[in-house]
């Protein structure tokens, strides 16, 4: 995350905040989120999510490939994170690679549980062909709390992803023929109800905060990132920062994270449904 300088007095001011942070939020409040899907026309699904100053663009492309030998009846998801050098000066050159790999690996881990997404929906021909979803994440601006922003954007992009429907034509000897539907609107969508959202909790003093700003991240020495699925289950946990955490505080942080994650999931699904039913409105895009 971006390292900014703060004076001792500013850090003391942030530490002493008793459920009233510098911008008036309570410890469990998120900053305003602005969401838009369907921006990238040549991707099967896309979304752009802006959480205050953090801006993330996600594109999902679907391709046919052979499934893994140990999981012949399932498709798979492949994540790739690119920290653009425009996001923050630290990402210049190869500076953003470490962070990109971390986010990528943690996303992979949080989606591994069978509770999140039903990968058998992506299977086309058992053992031979399946859909692979390539999720490409581009971090355009870094304003603190990247994990949460990325996970919400990925969830929105997966919600709008349209997978072409495929029919298996008659077997021609040993080779089955796959027939792609002619109609571009004949697609199916994934059930993203249980797709996880990541919740970052940073520990400052004796309390922990949701959605830290870069200044608050600088004041804190430890935190956890928790992947919470739609059914309020925790699928992955990662500790960030160099400080230590007491086991009791870790347990209470996990509990808070699952509650916050459930609320975020619910509100996000509601908004995505609203956008879908609103139909074809004018795309706002990047021109604002």
């Amino acid at each position, binding site marked *: 995350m971006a390292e900014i*300088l*703060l*004076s*001792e*007095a*500013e850090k*003391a*001011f942030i530490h*002493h*905040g*008793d459920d*009233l*942070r*510098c*911008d*008036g*939020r*309570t410890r*469990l*409040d*998120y*900053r*305003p*989120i*602005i*969401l*838009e899907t369907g921006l990238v026309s040549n991707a099967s699904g896309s979304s*752009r999510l802006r959480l*205050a100053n953090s801006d993330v663009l996600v594109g999902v492309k679907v391709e046919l490939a052979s499934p893994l030998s140990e999981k012949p009846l399932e498709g798979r998801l492949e994540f790739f994170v690119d920290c653009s050098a425009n996001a923050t000066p630290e990402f210049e050159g190869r500076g953003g690679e470490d962070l990109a790999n971390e986010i990528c690996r943690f996303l992979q881990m949080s989606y591994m549980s069978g509770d999140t997404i039903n990968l058998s929906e992506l299977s086309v021909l058992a053992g031979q062909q399946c859909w692979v979803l390539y999720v490409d994440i581009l971090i355009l601006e870094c304003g603190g709390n990247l994990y949460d922003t990325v996970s919400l954007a990925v969830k929105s992009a997966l919600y709008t992803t349209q997978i072409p429907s495929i029919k298996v034509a008659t077997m021609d000897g040993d080779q089955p023929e796959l027939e792609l539907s002619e109609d571009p609107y004949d697609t199916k969508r994934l059930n993203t109800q249980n797709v996880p959202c990541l919740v970052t909790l940073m520990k400052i003093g004796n309390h922990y905060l949701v959605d830290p700003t870069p200044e608050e991240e600088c004041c804190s020495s430890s935190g956890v990132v928790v992947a919470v699925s739609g059914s309020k289950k925790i699928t992955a946990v990662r500790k960030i920062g160099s400080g230590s955490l007491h086991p009791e505080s870790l347990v209470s942080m996990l509990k808070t994270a699952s509650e*916050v994650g459930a*609320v*975020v999931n619910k*509100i*996000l699904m509601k*908004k995505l449904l*609203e*956008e879908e039913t*609103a139909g074809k*409105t*004018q795309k*706002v895009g990047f021109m*604002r």
Partner: protein
Amino acid sequence: MVDIRLASEVPLFDIVADSTEPKHLVTPGSLITKETGFMRGHGTYMQDDCLYASVAGVVERVNQLISVRPLKSRYHGEIGDVVIGRITEVSQKRWKLDTNARLDSVLLLQSVNLPGGELRRRSAEDELSMRQYLKEGDLVSAEVQNIFNDGALSLHTRSMKYGKLSQGCLVKVSPSLIRRQKTHFHNLPCGASIIMGNNGFVWICPTLHEDVAGGFVQNLETVPHADRQAISRLRNCVTALAQCKMMIYDTSIMHAYDASINAGFEIKDLLLPDKITEIALMVRKQFEMEKE
């Protein structure tokens, strides 16, 4: 707890802007004039006897001088400006500060007041204990004393009102939104003080009392809750005014503060895009009423 909006629901911030179009907006590379006989100022270049703009901004013409004032640029220092800077480096006999300008500003050791108020020549011991006065990350309020040849600003804190800043909240806005006033230090009636640096850094802190101002003492006691609320609300008001591109000075900040209290907005509500435009429109209306 969580507020998610669709991009189509977010209001445009420039509904608060003047309906009159600014005269002659240009983008880099656009032609300003083909006539000769004009002197070219900042933000322009000459090619084949034609004058082109090199920055995006408004064309300004003073008699025969044509220049382009950019819409968004780094802070351009003038002598006598009050600035707020963050120490980035401690070097030999000087500190380097980040003031949102093109180059780091310089604060020379001989330009600061020594604790205790002594007036003497700085010794080698003073040089070695520079870090005890100001170290990396500290915020200082200072005045521009001089401008070096390369454009770097030389600052000084030779007055009790300048010096290291204590607890509070820093807001960064565009330098062009800060109006040049007689005084940049204001003790607002709501229980907080505000320092508006010409470089776009606005510092909001609990009310500064006359006897504790300046120097190198930092007060690390807990700030009372009511003061924290005032500071947070002011911070959100300043950010709201900056997003709607309104000029920031003590009157506009107080109008925004009063408008947010009268409308009954909670402090965290002022982060939402529609509340920001509402506040800006209310401040606008207040100014129009005052003019009559």
